[in-house]
């Protein structure tokens, strides 16, 4: 059976970028029908989340059961299997730094990578808008490091006892740090409770103090502003015959797999994150677009971005009490806001965060001599080893994306409907690969300086090969030959087709990127009006 839905706007995906677009369009004052298509299921209501958290804490069970589609085992470093209402932002830590102005002009400033077609100033109002929708609690950093036009919507999450001590320590190393901005309520906000620091922000906040997109969807659905179709997998976007406009989305309702669902709309918004957006465009190859939609440049799926981290555990001669709030941190932009003169003419930019930690300081079963410890002996040993504390420090550094960091269709793996799954691979741009040893050595040197300033020692350092906060695959630009979408997220090739959020990123910056994805999506939505 064939079913047809007619609407003004069809949003594909229901993650955090989709929620931003829907929120902006729904409250624009112009009546329009919005249909949102989500391949996964709805998520458990807030009332169930305490019990789900208990199972997660006790047994490591996923607090978002069935938040994925079976059979989607992807080749390559997929960030998460999440495919549900709210997407990956149901799991996120709620950390919301902005990029710094330099992130948008690394080619012009440092001679490496690629400039964005927009500046920090272009995005600033949308950063603010995103912070107000999400509800961000933040502390204004020093003006020169942390530019913003208006105050944060909420006062910062206060520093814990531990972070207060750690702040004093990093100041001895000449580093100004402050409370990490977070999409967690420090006061009642948006009808949700303030944070109570029960420290399971990721994977689940049981009280709704942390923003997640389901709150936006529930409000929009309740107000009948959107129609959200769950368990509806879009398999292809179909062009109007002989034209470049998108006619309809072809979908399958997972509960009626033999039926065909067509969604006809005036505007189509692909909001499937860095994987499923490019994947859908590539799956949509057809006459008139033999390499997939929006792919005249051949760049759909290319230039995936991210940042790598160097992390260390530093032992300090101060008594800390880990467990008060291990997920909240100090942050600085001191090393993001550098010039080539600051770094010996080379491109090294990174953020820096500091957390309380219990790494290496947990109870143990054997002594240093290998003797089995039981009962009182375990406790004695544990107390002895926790007389002083440790801090976790981490720096995300910018990895310049290469064209070969890519998502392609994997003919060897197919979903239940026969569509090839995506295949992911990441590679540093040659300039970035050449800089890597220098960058990581410089960060290790910083960690050593910090340790010495506190009369401490670096216990261990490690580099995570995974490029975190992945994005890109439909990068923005002014030149249709070198980009997929324009500076607002509209595809160069199809006037009624938009890609929003993470996939449009030109580079991964050197800080958690979700707020930037939200700001980009809101900027796109403003243009759609």
């Amino acid at each position: 059976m064939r079913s047809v839905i007619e609407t003004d706007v069809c949003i594909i995906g229901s993650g955090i970028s989709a929620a931003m677009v829907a929120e902006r369009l729904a409250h624009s004052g112009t009546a329009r029908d919005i249909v949102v298509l989500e391949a996964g299921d709805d998520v458990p209501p807030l009332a169930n989340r305490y019990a789900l958290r208990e199972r997660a804490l006790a047994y490591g069970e996923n607090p978002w059961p069935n938040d994925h589609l079976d059979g989607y085992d992807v080749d390559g470093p997929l960030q998460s299997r999440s495919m549900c209402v709210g997407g990956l932002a149901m799991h996120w830590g709620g950390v919301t730094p902005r990029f710094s102005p330099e992130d948008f002009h690394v080619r012009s400033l440092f001679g490496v990578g690629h400039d964005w077609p927009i500046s920090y100033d272009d995005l600033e109002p949308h950063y603010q808008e995103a912070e107000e929708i999400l509800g961000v609690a933040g502390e204004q950093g020093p003006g020169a490091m942390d530019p913003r036009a208006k105050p944060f919507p909420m006062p910062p999450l206060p520093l814990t006892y531990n972070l207060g001590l750690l702040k004093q320590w990093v100041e001895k190393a000449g580093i100004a740090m402050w409370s990490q901005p977070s999409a967690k309520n420090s006061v009642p906000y948006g009808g949700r409770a303030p944070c109570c620091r029960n420290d399971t922000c990721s994977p689940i906040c049981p009280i709704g103090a942390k923003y997640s997109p389901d709150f936006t969807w529930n409000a929009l659905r309740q107000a009948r502003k959107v129609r959200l179709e769950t368990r509806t997998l879009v398999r292809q976007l179909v062009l109007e015959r002989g034209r470049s406009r998108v006619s309809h989305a072809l979908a399958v309702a997972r509960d009626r797999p033999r039926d065909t669902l067509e969604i006809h709309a005036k505007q189509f918004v692909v909001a499937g994150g860095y994987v499923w957006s490019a994947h859908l465009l590539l799956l949509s190859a057809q006459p008139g677009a033999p390499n997939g939609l929006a792919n005249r440049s051949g760049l759909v799926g290319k230039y995936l971005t991210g940042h790598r981290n160097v992390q260390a555990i530093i032992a300090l001669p101060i008594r800390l009490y880990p467990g008060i709030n291990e997920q909240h941190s100090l942050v600085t932009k001191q090393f993001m806001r550098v010039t080539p003169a600051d770094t010996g003419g080379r491109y090294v930019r990174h953020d820096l965060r500091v957390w309380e930690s219990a790494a290496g300081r947990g109870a143990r079963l054997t002594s240093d001599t290998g003797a089995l410890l039981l009962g009182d002996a375990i406790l004695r040993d544990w107390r002895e080893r926790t007389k002083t504390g440790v801090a976790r420090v981490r720096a995300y550094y910018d990895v310049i994306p290469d064209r070969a960091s890519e998502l392609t269709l994997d003919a060897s793996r197919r979903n239940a409907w026969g569509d090839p799954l995506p295949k992911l691979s990441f590679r540093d741009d040659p300039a970035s690969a050449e800089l890597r040893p220098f960058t990581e050595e410089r960060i290790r040197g910083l960690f050593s300086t910090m340790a010495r300033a506190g009369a401490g020692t670096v216990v261990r350092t490690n580099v995570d090969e995974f490029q975190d906060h992945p994005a890109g695959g439909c990068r923005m630009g002014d030149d249709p030959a070198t980009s997929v979408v324009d500076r607002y997220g509209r595809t160069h090739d199809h006037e009624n087709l938009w890609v929003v959020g993470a996939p449009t990123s030109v580079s991964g910056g050197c800080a958690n990127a979700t707020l930037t994805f939200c700001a980009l999506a809101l900027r796109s939505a403003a243009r759609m009006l």
Partner: protein
Amino acid sequence: MSISRRAFLAWAAGAVPVAAVVRRAHALSVAELSAEGAPSQTLLALGDVVLPSELGAEGTSRAVDAFRRWMVGYREHAELTHGYGTSRIRYSGPTPVTRWMSQLDALDAAARQRYGTPFASLDVARREQLVRAALAGARMDRMPAVGEADHVAVALVAHFFASPVATDLCYGVAIGRESCRPLAASGELVLLKHS
């Protein structure tokens, strides 16, 4: 017709370990743990050996009860929290409870054989000897996750020492890991009476 856990396990030893058999063994173990029989007494007596004496009888009983509830609540093949950077979905493994119950039986049997009395009736020093003998040769290089503990004694230790109660006991401060508190309170420390 009801059947005891031991009788069922004796029968099941010759059977193919299909899911239904495993589930039945787990259910019988859980039922026995919830009763006041020998395994429950052995488990409590084990707590005196492997948990800190500062807990006292009441605290030890609470810690053992919490571990018992963990065992009762264990679910096989439950979807686990997603790994980061991978598309692999993981599920919880087979129940460890059946194996741990057999180990409680073995501790009790060893006590009866060596001292002619149940494990729960021995003094703590003798109980500890038996526990150490049971753990001899086992891998002890790290504190395992509870469900991955090879032996029930290690599982009880792992369960308690991963708890917020244990953290507070170690630090002598009401850190209150994973519990709700007013935001402003997280800047202060609350010393515990015994510290």
